């Protein structure tokens, strides 16, 4: 056991740090550090910079163009990006659909789709959830009927994060109603510019449109866009979901936000308030304990062991921590978190903010928005069901 990173790992960190410092646009980092609103270009711009360096696909095997990093190196890369204030990598392309294409797509599909994902040129969205099927994903109803050399897709997806920017969407669709619900599902890649695709943004409680409904009305999808075999999509989706992702804990971002919380608490004169400081102290212990848990999982993965009984805890604790720091940030601003001034949430606003500092404008909306973290990606209730299974059978 050793808490210290090896000299090689430290050198790797330095390399990443210097590169990120040199290439991350300052204005984007400012927005991220203050949680101001990011444009599509802010996000995709950074993705393309990473793509050019070959680091957008940082988790991919070398045979598909990944850098071949160890689990620890991937973690250090994520940490350096987060601490520097880089936008989060939108996962739907490089982290979610790419592994499925690599594992189950044919050579033609790999050649066609992977380069655009690795370069950041093509924006992917996810089409899993439907209005009636959230935790119970297998009950999905969107149909794809094979007609000649294409599928005709009808139905509706929802909660499609940033789908308004999407070029392509990977979908679970029903190709058969026979057998168990899981058996009739296929995995289909759909060009979002196809006729019949409509995207309707859903305004969330913080005023932003972060998710969307996506409607499919007789959308023609070439049969060559089917991944693997018809009716085997559930297997591929499970592969995607079970794909080890320690970053689900988002501990690096929480470290950055913890520092920000301390900074704002100082600004607000709360550092001397033992009651508020104690709340930060408790959060600090939480973040540290989560980080240790993440490192344990990384160690296990690196040595080829299955850390499944701990990995299930990362999502729960990680999301609870995100909610807590967003809440404390809002409470630190106190009354000055109350004005809802949309313009103030974008960088560069020159107005007079009632609290005196326009960066306060985002704190309550972020708190509101972060209620999602215990709901999405498998609600924490579902996660607890899974953890209980590992303990109780």
């Amino acid at each position: 056991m050793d808490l210290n990173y090896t000299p090689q790992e430290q050198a790797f960190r330095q390399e990443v740090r210097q590169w990120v410092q040199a290439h991350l646009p300052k204005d984007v980092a400012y927005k991220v550090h203050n949680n101001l609103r990011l444009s599509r270009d802010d996000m995709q711009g950074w993705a393309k910079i990473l793509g050019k360096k070959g680091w957008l696909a940082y988790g991919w095997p070398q045979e598909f163009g990944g850098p071949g990093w160890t689990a620890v190196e991937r973690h250090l890369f994520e940490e350096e990006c987060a601490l520097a204030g880089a936008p989060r990598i939108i996962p739907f392309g490089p982290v979610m659909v790419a592994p499925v294409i690599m594992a189950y797509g044919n050579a033609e599909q790999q050649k066609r789709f992977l380069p655009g994902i690795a370069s950041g040129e093509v924006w992917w969205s996810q089409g899993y959830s439907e209005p009636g099927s959230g935790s119970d994903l297998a009950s999905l109803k969107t149909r794809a009927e094979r007609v000649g050399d294409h599928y005709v897709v009808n139905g509706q997806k929802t909660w499609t994060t940033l789908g308004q920017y999407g070029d392509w969407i990977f979908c679970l669709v029903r190709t058969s109603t026979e057998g168990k619900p899981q058996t009739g599902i296929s995995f289909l890649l759909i060009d979002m510019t196809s006729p019949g695709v409509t995207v309707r943004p859903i305004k969330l409680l913080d005023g932003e449109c972060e998710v969307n409904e996506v409607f499919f009305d007789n959308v023609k999808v070439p049969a060559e866009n089917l991944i693997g075999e018809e009716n085997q999509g559930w297997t591929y989706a499970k592969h995607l979901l079970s794909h080890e992702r320690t970053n689900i804990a988002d501990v690096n971002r929480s470290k950055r936000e913890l520092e920000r919380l301390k900074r704002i608490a100082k600004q607000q004169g709360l550092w001397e308030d033992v009651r508020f400081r104690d709340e930060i102290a408790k959060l600090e212990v939480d973040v540290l304990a989560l980080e240790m848990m993440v490192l344990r999982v990384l160690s296990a993965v690196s040595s080829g062991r299955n850390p499944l009984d701990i990995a299930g805890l990362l999502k729960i604790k990680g999301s609870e921590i995100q909610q807590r720091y967003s809440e404390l940030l809002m409470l630190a601003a106190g009354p000055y978190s109350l004005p809802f001034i949309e313009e103030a949430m974008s960088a560069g606003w020159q107005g007079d903010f009632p609290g005196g500092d326009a960066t306060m404008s985002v704190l309550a909306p972020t708190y509101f928005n972060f209620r999602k973290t215990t709901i999405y990606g498998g609600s924490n209730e579902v996660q607890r069901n899974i953890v209980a299974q590992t303990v109780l059978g």
Partner: protein
Amino acid sequence: MDFNFSDDQLQLREAVRKWVEKAYSFERRKGIVASGGFDRAVWQELAELGLMGLTVPEAQGGMGMGAIEAMVVLEELGQGLVLEPYAQALLAGDVLAQHADAALQQAWLAPLTSGEALIVLASQERGARYQLEPVGTQAEQSAGTYHISGQKSLVPAGDLADAWIVPALLQGETALFLVEKGASGVQADGYLTQDGSRAAEMRFAKTPAKLITTNGSAALQQAAYIGIASVCASGVGVMDKTLLLTADYLNQRKQFGVVIANFQALRHRMADMKMQLELGRSMSYYAWLKLDEPEAVERKLALSRAKYQLGQSMRFVGQQAVQLHGGIGVTDEYIGSHYFKTLTQLEISWGDSLHHLGIISDNMQETAGVAA
């Protein structure tokens, strides 16, 4: 010892509830938010229901009702997420009826009671956080008139008000002043707040003002207590409806082929929400019943205890309601998310939970410190 409502109180509740159900639909509310968070017509409708000047003595032109009536009204308005700041009518009425001279009362209590005049308290200062007393607003007297200068934040519907009650320092002591709309040197910039209601940033530059009282600390403190009690009662109403919405949703939504109200973990969460609601309701009663407590420290403690409990209750109920709804709970188009946002804003109004815990802890008595 009696915790029952009188028949009159129950009728008042029914009247307000009916108005909320009929006149304050989610659609109308959306429209009000879209047009700035305050609707003068609503204010007039509340006045027509007889709710303005509710606790102002009849001799002074008010309705002459008591604290419990005010609480009942606020609970019901909370159920409908009514944006218009009814609590301001209560505390402005109290300040004027208790402290203003006859001339001021004559000028303002009647229009307050008729709903013609919206009078609000402008007390929040920049950098003052939850401290009540003014620090940066100065008053000076010259040639028989007073002028005030300073800045106030988050004044409820401030840019639409007809008069403001403004705490300012007069020779180093807190005094309360009344400033009329149209007075020189007033600048008001309105904006929405997180729950959709309206507030304004206000600046006074050598603005002529009428003195309400030089005993401003005590008057302001009591106004704050009415504010705290109002938050408690509103919170109870908001939570009441939140539980109903959540229970309805759990009884409709199906996953894995069954209604999710069947899942025991969710059922127990609902039981815990009910617990928090009832603890909160109990402490809201306590707050209103303690508003006239003669002993100053005991009164301060009572209101802080109530606000602390409500803070705990509103946080739990609000957060869990969203969680139990899942995705729909975080959308703007679903009414439930607005209940959550309102509960959050109420927590931050008049001092958050940690602030009031500090008051309770720092002033704690050696006795059990509870009733009897």
